[in-house]
Each structure stands twice: as structure tokens, then as C-alpha cells.
């Protein structure tokens, strides 16, 4: 009896230590980033977030161009990636219903995109995708629709917001489609059958009874994809051109929060270094927010299903 209790508590303490490690990790992460970023935080205060100048020799640092670049590229990625991901999920769960193996295989194929390392996306982006986009999309758009500010400028180089957004769109498709797929799979069949019995077409069933039921989960996947786009570094740093720039012109070079860190942290010191760590702190805060919201939505969805089942 004595031995049993001792064994139980030893195991519990060991496992609890592992669980505590994860909490300690997140806390230390926040504290350490804040400690190193402090000089920059005290120097610039909230103005850091709206400052547009990034000048190393005069020690002026403002994060707005990078926040802007992150938002614009993520927005392009979501606008293109989200409908595609949802379409893939609908195809697998609704159109291929009853063809389990076929659906599972297609799912695996789409998931394989997630297995491609981001630096390989970057390599492919630089040498294959950018030349293609430049010749067949950016130059024609620029030539014929150049009067629209979005496509303005002269002779797009390909290293710009637009290309970065497209690369990000490809990268977040597997994340968003996998979550949407799991969520749509979890919608009970009675939900569909009720709608079919009223004489609805396939699309009406999907639109009026499957998607509304799954919406919080789909939104959770959407946010997770957004979080991935915000934080992605290597592929973006290779294709965005790396020039601090706030412009509605999608064909101009830009910079994002994470690509700034990758590109400039190595040669930074003093206030410069501390400003870059503050950029990391912004990324940390946004990632925390995005992931907390997404997880809460997904948790709510799975709890709701358990209650109903």
C-alpha cells in the first residue's frame, strides 16, 4: 500500500513537472522578450506602433511599415487561401461523402503542402513563382489596370506585397482546410438529412444547414490560418523585397514584422536590437491573441458537439 501511493505520487509529480514546463516556457518567453525590449519601449512608448521611420544611424525606430506589411500580405493570403481551403473541405466532406478512402487520400495530398519547409517555398518563390507572376499576372495587370492605385507603379519586379501574399496563401491552405475538414466532418448527418427531406439541393444543404452549424469551427480555422500568415518568416523574407514601405500599391516592395527580424537582427545592437525585440514582442502579443481566440472557438465547437451527441 505504501509503495503504491509512493509510485503514484512520484509519477504524478514527474508528469506535472512536464506540464508546468510548458507554462513556465510561455511566461519566461514573455518576460525575457520584455526585458530586452524595455529600452525601446521606454524610449518610444506607444509611438513605436505608429512611427513610420526606421533609421539606424539616427536611432529612429517605428514599427508601422512592418505592421502594415504583415497585415497586407496576410489579407491577400486570406482572401485567396480561405475560399480555396473551404472549397477543398466542402469537396472532401460533402461531395465525397461515402467515398471514405478517396476523401482521405485527397486530404493527405492537400496536407502534404504543410510538409514543404518554408525555406523551400521561399526558394521556389524566388526562382519559379516570381518570374511566372511577374510575366503573366503583374505586368499585364499593371499595364491594363495601372490606373487603379493597387496595381500602379512602373514595371513590377515581382519582389513585392502581392507575391508574398500569394506564397502565404499557398502555405496556409493546408492549415485552414484541415481544420475546416475536421469541423465539417463533425456535423451530424441528421442535420443534412433534415434539409434534404425538405427537397433542398446539395448546395442548399451545405449552405443552409452544414456551414451555419460549423461556423464557429470554420472561423477558428480561419484565425489559425491568419496566425500562421502573421508569423511566417522565411518564405516572406525571400520574396517581399525587404524595404520599409507603406503604400497601397501591391506591386511595390515591403517588409513584415518577422522578415525584419530575420533580416536585421543579426547585425543589430543597443537600441536597434532592443527595437527589433520589441517587434518580436508585438508578434508574440498578436500570436497569443490570435491563437487564444482560435482555440476558444474550436474548444467551444467541440464541447457543443459533445453535449449534443
Amino acid at each position, binding site marked *: 500500500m505504501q509503495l503504491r501511493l509512493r509510485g503514484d505520487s512520484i509519477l504524478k509529480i514527474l508528469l506535472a513537472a512536464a506540464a508546468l514546463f510548458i507554462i513556465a516556457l510561455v511566461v519566461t518567453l514573455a518576460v525575457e522578450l520584455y526585458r530586452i525590449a524595455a529600452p525601446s519601449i521606454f524610449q518610444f512608448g506607444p509611438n513605436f506602433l505608429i512611427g513610420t521611420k526606421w533609421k539606424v544611424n539616427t536611432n529612429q525606430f517605428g514599427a508601422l511599415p512592418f505592421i502594415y506589411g504583415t497585415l497586407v500580405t496576410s489579407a491577400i493570403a486570406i482572401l485567396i487561401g480561405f475560399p480555396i481551403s473551404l472549397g477543398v473541405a466542402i*469537396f472532401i466532406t460533402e461531395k465525397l461523402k461515402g467515398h471514405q478512402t478517396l476523401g482521405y487520400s485527397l486530404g493527405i495530398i492537400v496536407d502534404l503542402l504543410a510538409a514543404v*519547409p518554408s525555406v523551400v517555398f521561399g526558394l521556389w518563390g524566388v526562382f519559379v513563382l516570381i518570374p511566372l507572376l511577374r510575366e503573366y499576372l503583374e505586368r499585364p495587370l499593371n499595364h491594363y489596370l495601372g490606373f487603379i492605385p493597387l496595381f500602379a507603379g512602373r514595371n513590377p519586379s515581382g519582389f513585392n506585397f502581392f507575391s508574398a501574399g500569394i506564397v502565404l496563401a499557398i502555405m496556409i491552405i493546408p492549415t485552414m482546410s*484541415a481544420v475546416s475538414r475536421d469541423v465539417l466532418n463533425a456535423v451530424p448527418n441528421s442535420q443534412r438529412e433534415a434539409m434534404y427531406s425538405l427537397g433542398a439541393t446539395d448546395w442548399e444543404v451545405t449552405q443552409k444547414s452544414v456551414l451555419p452549424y460549423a461556423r464557429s469551427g470554420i472561423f477558428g480555422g480561419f484565425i489559425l490560418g491568419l496566425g500562421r500568415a502573421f*508569423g511566417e*518568416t522565411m518564405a516572406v523574407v525571400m520574396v517581399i523585397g525587404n524595404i520599409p514601405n507603406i503604400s497601397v500599391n501591391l506591386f511595390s516592395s515591403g517588409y513584415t514584422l518577422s522578415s525584419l527580424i530575420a533580416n536585421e537582427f543579426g547585425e543589430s545592437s543597443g537600441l536597434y536590437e532592443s527595437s527589433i*525585440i520589441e517587434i518580436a514582442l508585438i508578434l508574440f502579443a498578436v500570436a497569443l491573441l490570435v491563437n487564444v481566440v482560435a482555440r476558444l472557438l474550436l474548444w467551444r465547437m467541440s464541447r457543443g458537439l459533445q453535449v449534443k451527441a
Partner: protein
Amino acid sequence: MVTTESDLPASVSLQRKIVNKSMTILVLVAVVLAIVPLILILGDVFIKGAPAINLTFLTAKPTAPNLPGGGIAPAIEGSIVMVGLAALISIPIGVGAGIFFSEWSTSKLSTVSGFLNDVLTGFPTMVLGLFVFILLVLTTKTYSAYAGGFALSLIMIPIIARTTSESLKLVPTTLREASMALGVPRWKTVLRIVLSTGKNGLLTGILLATARASGETAPLLFTAATSTIFIKNLSQPTASLTILIYNYALSSVPNWVTQAWGAALILLLVMLALNLLVKLTIGRNLTRARMEM
């Protein structure tokens, strides 16, 4: 379940039929748009990478940019060593936390830690790299394989913990009860009955996490940095395949760019093999593992 137009009764209006049909087409277009980039990437990496691969490429050190030949052996070695280090750190912690999440799922520690663990899965890896820089590089004043391995372990821990807990939750409660009813203590039940029943899930998590860590670049930039020589000890800057691809791709040295494609092919083959192995065999029933990737 797949309804064709002719299945729909005549009473369904033309407009509804058209909408239905067009949505089917749009959904198909989405599938094509999702698969085409994958085919293009795989195709390009194979076509451009294959010519670079030969024995020298796999076994030699890099040469100066203006000299032909040279290889990527130190980067292969560095990647294997750092991913190995990361596995050594992350497997005990990840599996331990995963068991705790599943077997003590009602405790407050489990809820909080499990939630933060999920949050960590979606964290920008660049930020994790900077954190390890502050923790290990600033204090030891050198880039090292240790720091690189630790940074990669932070990416592996949440994946392993989540897949472990999800697969242990699939172990039927009756098994635990049967074991306890025979007088087996709880710690033995957990280690001998629950763990061995759920071991496929554990293995899935570990393999997926290893694959993910092998492909990471951002966490290594400021922790392991880079090097052109083989590892002498673990507290010196260390090369890795991913950083090599990054540096070579942006080098505008033709020989190096070709080698970047070769290195990308090797990395991609490893990643695809690990992923397919998991998904076609042991991981089939673990939807959550798929979700976390």
C-alpha cells in the same frame, strides 16, 4: 449521396439548379487550385534538384563561391545532430505533459498547460528563435548546436504533447478500470497499460514533430547560425540544411543556387517520407494529429 442534376425533381427551379451546379464547379476549381502548387513545387524541386546530387555533393564540405564542386555534408550532419538533440529534450517533456493532459484531464494545471500548449503550436517560430538567443546565446556568447537543438525542441514539445494526449484519450476507460480492479497501482496502469495501448499515437506525434523540426529555418538563424565545417563540439556555430538553402538561394552564385535546389530535394524527400509513413500507416485514426500540423 452524390446527387446529379437528373436526380433533382422537376419542381426544382432552373435557378436553383444553376446555383447548385455552379457551386459544384467552384468547389472543384478550389481543389485544383490547392493541388496545382503542390505539383509545381514537387516537380520543380525534383527537376532542378536531381542534377545537383552526386557523391561529392553528399560527402564533401562547401568550397569557395568561385570554385566548382563542393558539398553539403556539414549541413546534413548539423541538421541530424540538432534534430536529434531536440528529440532528446522534447520527447520526455512532450510525452510527460501529454500523459498528464490525458490522465489528469480534470486538473486545473492540465487545463491551463494544455491550452498554452495549443497556443504554442501556432506560435511564430522566429520569436521562439529570438527567445533562445536571449536565453542561451547572449549568456554563452556563442552560437551553438545546443542552442539550435533547444530552439527546435520548443517546436516539437507542443506537437508531441498534443498527439500523445489525444491518442491516450482514445484508450478505453474500461482498460484502466480492469487493470486497477486487479490491484495494479495507478502508476503501473498508466505506464504499462495505457502507454502501451496508445504507443502508435505517441510514435505518430514524435515522427510528425521530427519532420516539422527538420524543416525549420527561422529558429536556427540566431541560435545555431551557420558554418562550413563539420562539428567538432556542440558549443560552436553549426550548419543546417535549411539555413544552407536560405543562404545559397540568395547568394546569386550559380553553383550555390544549384546546390540549394539539391539540398531542398533531400530535405523534401525526408519530410515527405516521414509524413507519408505516418499518414498511411500508424496515424490513420488520429485526426487531431493531422489538424495540428
